[in-house]
């Protein structure tokens, strides 16, 4: 199969993103973003006045300089919802405890790169939330996390259809099969049938 063929195959596990909307059936909202994803949260709050009433906190991974307008939005005189983290990893490390202290009726709104939003979704699922309780919006990098079934590591930041696995050095083609459990796409050896036969690599997932 060539990479182009994938366009014509309906892969059910490939994420499809719907516009982010406030869920009126919610008691509390936890807003989570990294980098430019913060703008998505501002838009969401501007679209729905009810959102602000339910929002408990905005967890943001990124620097002040990057998103100063959006940051001002969440840190005005009336309230300061912002809980800022220097890195994505520190946000992801703090989230499980936040969820463990939360009650039924909470909804998550998650904005950011594809890799980030699915890492957050995985933490939400591990906290017992189901997909109707969290909402994802992809803003920013589409770079993929790719799982290598040959050496069982996950490659971060893959932007091309074919890449060399950081674990076993095999050339992997990444396909649209997406694992919500691993928050990663599946890759597999591109020249498995005829060793050394390599299609040309293209940059697809910036």
């Amino acid at each position, binding site marked *: 199969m060539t990479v182009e063929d994938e366009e014509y195959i309906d892969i059910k596990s490939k994420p499809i993103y719907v516009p982010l909307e406030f869920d009126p059936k919610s008691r509390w909202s936890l807003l989570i973003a990294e980098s430019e994803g913060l703008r998505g949260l501002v838009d969401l709050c501007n679209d729905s006045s009810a959102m602000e009433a339910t929002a408990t906190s905005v967890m943001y991974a990124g620097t002040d300089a990057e998103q100063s307008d959006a940051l001002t939005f969440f840190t005005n005189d009336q309230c300061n919802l912002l809980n800022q983290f220097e890195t994505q990893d520190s946000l992801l490390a703090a989230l499980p405890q936040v969820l463990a202290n939360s009650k039924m009726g909470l*909804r998550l709104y998650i904005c950011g790169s594809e890799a980030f939003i699915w890492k957050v979704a995985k933490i939400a699922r591990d*906290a017992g939330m189901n997909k109707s309780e969290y909402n994802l919006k992809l803003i920013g990098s589409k770079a993929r996390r790719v799982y290598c079934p040959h050496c069982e590591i996950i490659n971060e930041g893959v932007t091309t259809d074919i890449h060399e696995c950081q674990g076993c050095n095999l050339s992997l083609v990444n396909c649209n099969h997406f694992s919500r459990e691993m928050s990663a796409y599946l890759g597999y050896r591109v020249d498995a049938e005829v060793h050394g036969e390599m299609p040309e690599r293209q940059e697809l997932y910036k």
Partner: protein
Amino acid sequence: MTAPFSNRVKITSVEQITPLIKHFKFERIDGEPFLPYSSGSHVVVSMKNDSGSHKNPYSLVGSSNNFMQYQIAVRLEDNGRGGSKFMHTQVEVGTELEIGNPYNLFPVYKIARKHLLIAGGVGITPFMTYIDEMDMTKGNFELHYATRDKSHAAFAQNLLERHPESIKLYHDDHGPKLDIEALLNDQPLGTHVYVCGPKGMVDAVLKVADKLCWPETSIHSEEFKAPETGKPFTVRLHKSQRDIEVTEKETLLEALEKADVEIPYSCRGGACGFCKTDVVEGDIDHRDYFLTDEEKKSGKCMMPCISRVNGDNLVLDL
């Protein structure tokens, strides 16, 4: 799938455990093990006596590890159609009965971080196997169990001894009452609620959970709805060109079975969907939980185990 009645069983123990509930244990007559089953499963017990035949679903209450024995607990229903009365007055040690294979419409959701169990009266029965499972998996659970008074709280002593911290009893006659709203208001993220009991309790839990924004997928209920009586009517079978009378006390499914029309079934309470039957003509009085509102409106199908017809004109595609 045809009617899953395959086990001839013999009663090995009968115990009156509350003023209204009897606890039955039975084993297969051929001495073979039963099928294993998952927590929350029920079986349909088939009874035959002079006044006709009954097929009633009952939750399994014994240990799911004991393959040689099944156990059920039956509440005597004064206004029932006779099945529970038969179990209470005609069944003793040595009585032979027929039972179906277990079927589960009320399973434990293993992804839940906490299981909140709410039982009313005989609604405790499906939770007996739940609590066995919680023991085995060290599951995080709470059971809130309401009965009219202490003497009516079946299995309560046993449960309290095993889980004094996780089980709360409520009695109508004294002490604090179960406050569903306060209970659901303060549950940790990842909780699933399961309710089994009288219609009023089930409806209240569903309503409060919805109001407090619990997602539908975290709310589970089981109400063994016994079929209600209705006006007698005649059903015409379109394909086989037969007319069958349905009496006041009979369900449509029972009347069809009596006339040797085989319809697959399991719960006989309008919940499982097995007996869904195509309708050619008729103004259906839908009483089930299974069909969607759209299906009910279309008038093209019905659940003969529990639903009837308005008026006297019903033609089924059988």
